[in-house]
């Protein structure tokens, strides 16, 4: 019995590690509940922290509401130096304006696409945007996806430059469950 202890321990360690390895790789297929990615020729990235409330009722668009905020400090461009630079006063000025917010004022539907009109506030500047949204049912909730363009110069995020494009394409995907 005593002789078997170490071989059994080795077998448990081996099988346990192999199982952990295979399941942890499987988990990669699970996408986070939301992602807000901005894309341009250079740079691209995501805001990793978001919070907010979404009220969505297909049959009562007047009651729909999107109230979202993103933490500027959670920006991730995949480049540490670029992340730090993005937080400086020239760009997002995270110390003074720690959040980007979007609060809807109206939701409309045309064909299969919803259009959410609302105020996007970034770096102290508020602009009205009409954002296309594709809503698909997921369990008891909804997944909202879509893309739109934002002119960073409108929000005084950086200066006009030949290197960094003025327009950033925003791709979003978020799940709201009841």
């Amino acid at each position: 019995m005593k002789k078997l202890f170490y071989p059994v321990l080795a077998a448990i360690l081996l099988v346990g590690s192999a199982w952990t390895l295979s399941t942890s790789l499987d988990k990669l297929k699970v996408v986070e509940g939301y992602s807000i990615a901005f894309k341009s020729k250079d740079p691209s990235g995501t805001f990793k922290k978001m919070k907010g409330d979404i009220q969505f009722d297909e049959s009562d668009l007047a009651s729909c509401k999107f109230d979202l905020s993103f933490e500027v400090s959670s920006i991730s461009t995949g480049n540490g130096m670029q992340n730090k630079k993005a937080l400086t006063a020239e760009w997002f000025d995270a110390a003074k304006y720690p959040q980007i917010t979007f609060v809807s004022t109206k939701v409309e539907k045309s064909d299969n696409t919803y259009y959410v009109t609302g105020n996007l506030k970034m770096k102290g500047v508020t602009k009205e945007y009409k954002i296309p949204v594709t809503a698909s049912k997921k369990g008891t909730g909804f997944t909202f996806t879509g893309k739109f363009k934002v002119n960073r110069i409108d929000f005084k995020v950086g200066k006009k430059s030949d290197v960094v494009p003025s327009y950033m394409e925003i791709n979003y995907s978020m799940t709201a469950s009841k």
Partner: protein
Amino acid sequence: MFRTYLFLGILTATLASVGAVGYASFFNKNLFDFSLALGNVSIVAACFVSAILMSIGAFFINKAMPKRGEIIFNFLLTSVTFLSILVPLKFQIPPVILAQITAVNFEGVEGFFPIFVIPMHFFPAMMWYSLRPLFFKNTTRGI
């Protein structure tokens, strides 16, 4: 005897995991962020799988060939380690993960994935070679 090989394997796995997780964290933070494609749990599990296999392999090879077992095992370990780099070279990142990695980095960043992973393939073997003399005083002499 097997107990000694097993302890060597566990210590190898532990130290290789510490080194690999540290390296991955540095790479993800300062160069390209591949944390969505390869998390710390996967790295630690891979270190344990390889090190426990080393323990089992070393035990049986040395038992079968007491005089030349170590030479053969070391040669095999080095060969397998080098051959294992074919895995990340051939690995296709799942499309869902690739989309997120591209979003936090840039288009085409997956080309750097093997550069991120390949150095970690050498960690367990290097740790094994470093720790083995602490567990076995008498090493096989050359031919």
